């Protein structure tokens, strides 16, 4: 599909990422999955290409492209490797972007420049053991002492957590205010009292790192608060609005990757002496899957376009994420049905794509939370 907003630059950039994804990343993806280890060399290579700061202006170390370009890149990466795509999404949408949109000029120079230029890895700490869907229930505390904040608490399921150099995270400064008492802060790797905890052993996205973050009397300077005091909730809600487009596009890309695998399989195989592609049920499978993915793509690109237009997009990004993540999982399931018994074999990428895709219905707000967001936008609170 080609949107009329797509310029020649968009298409050239999409082609550049596609070339890397198909020719370099795809042949590595199975190996990455099997080793289930964070691929530092690959990350460095992606950083050198500038893809860790695609939508960040050049003066802050980024490529200075728009959000459409960024989303197109994630889509191409997700088609072949969900783990690599979610690394970029978490780094950029959840760490570099909030610093860009809400940070002071000093914070941008100190943190955003190395993040966007791929010299440092970023991460975002929001979820906690008891605060998943209910992010307002954050229990990590920040207590002011002089010109420092003392942080205590635990974050869980944090993408890039073990390897991040710069982490944007949330903490309560006043528990009685509940979500209005939440503020965002920046912490650097190596700060005394801060350490990554256990790594998660996951169903999918196995070479993507997911870890706990532990704060034990960790002191950070006042100037590391991100945004004004009392506005932390707004900061992370907007971060999530933006981030959801990137999770949605991962669902979309994984679904597209699955469809490509399905088509390849159907072209190469037969059943009962008849090529698979000659069966009507296979035609229906392809037609329905492609139609749903196309609809998802429109929702995603539209949300990215709104982001570039700097319009509030809570409803549209939630819709895009809800629909695209579910369409992605569904596409993977349908293609697994097509491939049949071989699909269970770990040598076929299809089962990895499905395991990866399931996370997109959970991360950055489950499908249930997206429905709450959309509905509240419709009826008002």
């Amino acid at each position, binding site marked *: 599909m080609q949107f009329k907003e797509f310029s020649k630059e968009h298409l050239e950039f999409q082609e550049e990422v596609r070339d890397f994804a198909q020719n370099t990343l795809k042949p590595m993806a199975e190996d990455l999955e099997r080793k289930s280890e964070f691929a530092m060399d690959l990350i460095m290579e992606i950083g050198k290409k500038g893809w860790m700061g695609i939508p960040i202006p050049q003066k802050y170390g980024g490529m200075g492209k728009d959000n459409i370009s960024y989303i197109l890149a994630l889509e191409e990466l997700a088609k072949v490797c969900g783990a690599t795509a979610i690394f970029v999404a978490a780094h950029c949408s959840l760490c570099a972007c909030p610093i860009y949109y809400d940070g002071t000029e000093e914070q941008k120079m100190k943190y955003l420049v190395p993040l966007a230029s791929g010299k440092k890895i970023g991460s975002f700490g929001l979820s906690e053991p008891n605060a998943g869907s209910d992010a307002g229930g954050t229990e990590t505390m920040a207590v002011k002492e002089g010109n420092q904040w003392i942080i205590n608490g635990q974050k869980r*399921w944090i993408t890039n957590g073990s390897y991040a150099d710069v982490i944007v995270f949330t903490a309560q400064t006043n528990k009685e205010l509940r979500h209005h008492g939440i503020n965002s802060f920046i912490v650097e790797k190596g700060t005394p009292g801060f350490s990554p905890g256990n790594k998660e052993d996951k*169903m999918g996205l196995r070479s993507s790192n997911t870890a706990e973050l532990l704060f034990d009397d960790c002191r950070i300077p006042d100037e590391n608060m991100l945004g004004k005091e009392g506005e932390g909730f707004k900061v992370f809600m907007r971060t999530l609005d933006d981030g959801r487009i990137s999770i949605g596009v991962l669902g979309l890309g994984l679904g597209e990757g699955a469809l490509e695998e399905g088509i390849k399989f159907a072209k190469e195989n037969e059943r009962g002496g008849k090529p698979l592609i000659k069966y009507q049920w296979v035609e229906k499978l392809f037609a329905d899957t492609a139609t749903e993915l196309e609809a998802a793509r429109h929702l995603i690109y539209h949300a990215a376009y709104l982001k570039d237009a700097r319009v509030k997009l809570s409803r549209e990004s939630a819709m895009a994420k809800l629909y695209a993540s579910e369409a992605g999982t569904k596409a993977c399931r349908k293609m697994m049905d097509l491939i*049949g018994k071989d699909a*269970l*074999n770990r040598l076929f990428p299809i089962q990895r794509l499905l395991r990866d895709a*399931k996370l997109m219905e959970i*991360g950055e707000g489950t499908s249930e939370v997206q429905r709450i967001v959309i509905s509240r936008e419709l009826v008002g609170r």
Partner: protein
Amino acid sequence: MITQKGEMSMDFKLSEDQKLIRDMVREFAQKELPDLAAQIDEKPGFPHQIISKMAQLGLFGLFIPEAFSGGGMDLLSLILTVEELSKHCSSIGIFTALQAGVIPYAITRYGTQKQKENYLPRIAAGKLLASISLNEPLFLNQDKTPVLTCRLEGENYILNGFNRLVLAAEEANLFLLIAQDEKQQWKLFLVENGIPGLKITGIENSMSLRDLKLGQMVLDNCIIPAGNLLGKGDIQLEIRADIFETGKLLIAAVSLGIAEMALLKARDYSLERKQFETVIADFEGMRWMMATMQSKVTQIRALLAHAVNLKTAGEPAASEIAIAKMVAAESAIEITLDAIQVYGGYGYMKDFPLERYFREAKATEFILGTRSQQLNIIANKLIQK
């Protein structure tokens, strides 16, 4: 339905004997299997200890006539057994479906007296482990080249070809194989592992069933004594279909067991997990999701009960069995994915068994016939009428 105690009541009308067996297996499975399931998923290895405990309990002989040292119970008793085992460890459930169900059924129904005497008591005692390919087409290609061929030479048959996706290929002692002769006639063979010419050439790197190891078996001029021909000689493919039907009912029981456990875990978790200052079971979204899961479990059970009753009564049930098998697998996949959803981030992590339930449910879809193979059976029966 789940009762307050977390028990699932049966919609099958059970005799006292059937209830006794179900309760015994339930207790055994709850005690022995939960840890094993996670452990053998992580570090694949054949669970010899559990298999011998099950043999001691008489589980492998349940469905074997008493005359051959079995328990002489009916198909439903075995269905209940496989369901209870699969709630905690589906690979043990699938293994039992073959060891205690498919192979004994084939030998009891179609074997000679000598074969029954030779094999059934040893299968019942767990001294002989029996298996088949979980899904191997009859033909290699559109020229109708058979996957496995046989030819008579003197007193013996010579078998050539292969079978893939053979469950517990390395550990099993006996395989039931189908082969075609030069006259395009089909024959079933009982082939013992370890005979010259039979080789296990590879183990699948699979998404689940990793403990029991799906293997590829190659037969290169294997000499099989004529006495190992199941029954008297040529068979119609209807006989193979009949054997598979029994197997498909048992595999549907595996799907059912996985689905029930996923629902139970989701229900319990929803009553513990607090978000927005209340347990998530208080949210309509969660309640309806779980209500939908429950209705799917009930559908599987009703379809399975109907198909088992027909099969036990000796009625034609190809279509009903295909429907039960297909819907059971499909619903189990949906239920396990929804259970992950109820658990949220925790559901995606290997600390909890939810993601394993999904991988296990997915396997039940292809065993003894994929969704499209079942649809073809259903359509064929429909059009014949």
